[in-house]
């Protein structure tokens, strides 16, 4: 049948292009009220109360405060975050009260008729202040989590190295900016609480609702509406929004719909964690890397949310795609009075990979080595071990990624012909040089590279604890001759193509055509808990469970056919006649040889890694310091591309998010508040800013991946873009930046201050 490896038409495509796909804001229910949120105007303070304007006519308006919340916690990793603030506010925009009304004008006015009464307290707004305990805002030391990873004796090995280099590298916030804002529709009936919303993880919401309202499994039903992008932003946040909508629905006795305004969405929802990473390394004069010592500090914001897991992933990627005999990594995340940071594609890794890749460029600079050659010399290979002692058994396609990207981009030639400016003269000399030909534009071109890896699936013992499940049903429709199949999973399609790719995997394993396989709308009432749609685990982990479930079903049908004769469909019909809907459900089985110790952070951190090499070519205007990305080559080892076109779509889309993070995007905070929470001033790339991508799919299969070896691909492309761009700017202009972003103003300052 060979469905796997073919770029079939997107299954949910026709509805999306026809405008008939229903997103949450396209849904309604009779009697629906609109909901809105009253938020804290200050970063930290004592909440004394909420004043209601007595002159406002409150008829028909529902107001919910902390007193109305049965169990006032958001159940995530920890339970430190309240559903509504009751006595203290810990960040600007923290929810304080909720309002519902029938029409938007009444709603807006009711919201304005509520005033939070807050005695401000001095906020902790920076990591430095948090570490110095300017105020105690979380636990005894303002620390959310700490991790240590160690292999060999890094300090000693660095001290003994011929070339010792250190640097500090910083990254900034990033907003997911999915184009569909967060939204949720909630109602109650005799069977309990019902939610339909824009979300990635139905069972995360399910868990939160059960906890806050003390309900059992059977009385909570969470259904995913068609979701307009997530990128991690709809991983944990929708739980809070769901609780809000349900509280209003409960108190008003009516269905309630809450749709965030863009500004509210940018202000209140989670962002990528800012980071500061300090690296010291030792190597010999030939560029053979030996030892690295890394300290990572991340800003978690006001509540724990997913910060420990983000930090952990950051730490596990901090040494990059390289062989180091000695490694020491210390990672710490602290609390500040800023809106909580959370999941965003890459989940901590883009931050630490930015640091290690800039550090590799520092080493190349020091040794006057070709940056790509230096990397190539030190790449991890099959048989090497990672900083946690993980033995790399298979599927390490990084060498091929480097070769493919180098070849496609014309690296050697461009490295030589471009960027002479940087090589030959100090920057100031270039800029003062009278441009030949009068007004001829003063521009410099350069090329830069990054190499990276991304662990696919949950970290360490995550999958073993989770035990994700998937079911496939076989049933007979009266209107059709042949039996049909239905995939039931909690893995959601948020644009990445789950519905299509899962159909391919199932249809191939069942030896049936794709149009006989349905994908059930993810709803906690009807699908098993496959785990969340995160961590590049959907295709590789959940897809493999699905493949096993489908193969089991196929085997049963085949067995029946061999016993009783007839065709495959005859056998299938016999099974249905006997059992009704035939259900094949499987649970993920972590490979027995996969070992991880949470206490020591030793062992197999990930089932397998995806690998990549990105090469960027840029042109920098030497008058305005605007950077144009002229070309971008991404070669990434995906194991096996089940749908090559979508796979490329993931790589290109993720890479452009990384380019935006580097060149355009910047969250401006003042007193803990976001000054640019609009799409007119939080700038993401347009079609004209985006380069033409050349994407090479490298396939070095993972023996346990579905479809013949697929690995997770969702996050990998977010990791390499920013450092490749920074390296290209350095090649073009000589400007070295260790901190993101690389806005024209930042390059201008770097140039003026002589680097």
């Amino acid at each position: 049948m060979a469905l796997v490896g073919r770029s079939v038409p997107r299954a949910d495509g026709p509805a999306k292009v026809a405008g008939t796909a229903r997103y949450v804001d396209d849904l309604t229910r009779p009697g629906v009220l609109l909901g809105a949120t009253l938020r804290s105007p200050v970063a930290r303070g004592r909440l004394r109360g909420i004043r209601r304007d007595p002159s406002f006519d409150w008829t028909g308006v529902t107001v919910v405060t902390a007193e109305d919340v049965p169990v006032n916690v958001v159940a995530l990793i920890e339970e430190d975050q309240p559903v509504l603030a009751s006595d203290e506010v810990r960040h600007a925009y923290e929810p304080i009260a909720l309002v519902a009304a029938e029409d938007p004008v009444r709603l807006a006015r009711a919201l304005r008729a509520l005033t939070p009464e807050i005695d401000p307290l001095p906020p902790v707004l920076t990591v430095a202040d948090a570490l110095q305990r300017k105020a105690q805002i979380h636990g005894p030391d303002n620390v959310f989590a700490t991790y240590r990873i160690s292999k060999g004796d890094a300090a000693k090995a660095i001290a003994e190295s011929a070339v010792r280099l250190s640097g500090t590298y910083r990254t900034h916030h990033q907003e997911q900016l999915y184009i569909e804002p967060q939204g949720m529709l909630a109602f109650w009936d005799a069977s309990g609480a019902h939610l339909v919303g824009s979300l990635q993880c139905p069972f995360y919401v399910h868990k939160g609702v059960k906890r806050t309202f003390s309900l059992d499994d059977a009385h909570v039903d969470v259904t995913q509406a068609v979701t307009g992008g997530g990128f991690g932003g709809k991983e944990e946040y929708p739980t809070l929004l769901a609780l809000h909508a349900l509280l209003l629905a409960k108190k008003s006795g009516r269905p309630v719909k809450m749709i965030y305004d863009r500004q509210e969405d940018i202000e209140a929802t989670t962002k990528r964690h800012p980071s500061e990473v300090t690296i010291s390394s030792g190597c010999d004069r030939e560029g053979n890397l030996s030892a690295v010592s890394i300290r990572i500090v991340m800003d978690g914001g006001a509540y724990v949310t997913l910060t420990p897991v983000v930090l952990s992933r950051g730490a596990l990627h901090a040494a990059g795609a390289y062989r180091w005999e000695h490694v020491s990594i210390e990672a710490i995340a602290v609390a500040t009075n800023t809106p909580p940071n959370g999941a965003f594609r890459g989940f901590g890794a883009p931050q630490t990979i930015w640091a290690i890749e800039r550090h590799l460029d520092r080493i190349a600079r020091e040794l006057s080595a070709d940056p790509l050659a230096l990397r190539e010399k030190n790449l991890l290979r099959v048989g090497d071990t990672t900083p946690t002692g993980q033995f790399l058994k298979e599927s390490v396609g990084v060498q091929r990624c480097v070769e493919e990207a180098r070849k496609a981009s014309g690296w050697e030639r461009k490295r030589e012909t471009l960027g002479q400016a940087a090589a030959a003269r100090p920057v100031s000399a270039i800029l003062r040089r009278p441009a030949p030909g009068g007004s001829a534009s003063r521009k410099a071109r350069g090329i830069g590279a990054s190499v990276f890896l991304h662990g696919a699936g949950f970290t360490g013992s995550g999958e073993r604890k989770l035990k994700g499940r998937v079911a496939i049903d076989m049933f007979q429709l009266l209107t059709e001759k042949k039996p049909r199949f239905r995939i039931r999973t909690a893995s959601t399609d948020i644009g990445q193509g789950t519905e299509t790719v899962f159909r391919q995997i199932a249809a191939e394993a069942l030896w049936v055509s794709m149009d006989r396989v349905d994908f059930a709308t993810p709803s906690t009432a009807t699908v098993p808990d496959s785990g969340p749609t995160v961590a590049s685990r959907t295709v590789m982990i959940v897809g493999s469970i699905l493949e096993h479930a489908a193969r089991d079903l196929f085997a049963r049908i085949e067995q029946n056919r061999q016993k009783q004769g007839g065709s495959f469909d005859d056998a299938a019909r016999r099974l249905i006649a006997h059992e009704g809907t035939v259900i094949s459900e499987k649970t993920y089985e972590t490979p027995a040889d996969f070992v991880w110790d949470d206490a020591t952070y030793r062992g197999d951190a990930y089932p397998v890694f995806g690998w990549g090499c990105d090469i960027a070519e840029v042109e920098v205007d030497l008058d305005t310091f605007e950077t144009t990305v002229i070309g971008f080559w991404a070669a990434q080892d995906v194991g096996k591309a089940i749908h090559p076109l979508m796979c490329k779509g993931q790589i290109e889309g993720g890479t452009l998010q990384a380019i935006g993070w580097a060149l355009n995007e910047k969250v401006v905070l003042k007193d803990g508040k976001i000054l640019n929470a609009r799409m007119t001033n939080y700038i993401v790339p347009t079609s004209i800013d985006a380069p033409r991508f050349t994407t090479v799919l490298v396939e070095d299969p993972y023996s346990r991946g579905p479809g013949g070896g697929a690995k997770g691909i969702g996050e990998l492309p977010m990791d390499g873009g920013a450092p490749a761009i920074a390296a290209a700017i350095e090649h073009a202009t000589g400007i070295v930046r260790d901190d993101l972003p690389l806005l024209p103003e930042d390059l201008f300052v770097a140039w003026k201050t002589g680097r």
Partner: protein
Amino acid sequence: MRMSFVVNGRSRTLDAPPLTRLLDILRGPLGLTGTKEGCGEGECGSCTVLLDGVPVNACLVVAGQCDGRTVLTVEGLASKDTLSDLQEAFVKEGGAQCGICTPGILMAAHALLAANPQPGEGEIRESIAGNICRCTGYQRIVESIRQAAKEQAAREPG
């Protein structure tokens, strides 16, 4: 205010406050929820519709100014159950991922191909520069539009 306009080839008359956004008229009383709201201030282009054949952001157009004019939304692109070349190309070439920006981009691209049946890559990119997509990196969108132009050319005689 009582106003009439032609939406997707059908005359519609309704009563609404004249400063109601066209977006709210389409999504509300007309039930055309294919047009999406992403930012409400003309930055993302998700609510792009054609007003007398020209792309506009329906979040920045007031209904009172549309009286007597023609509006085309994503629901008007397909004829009966057949998707247009452009829609078909987006399904096949990876032009749609999460799909929330897709209706707006289809409208901008539809206007481009109506005016310029064989656009170059630069023209394609300029025509959708007012439509933000966060999923695709734009390349598959550009390819989809290019493919649709090819299909159209192949279909038309001469």
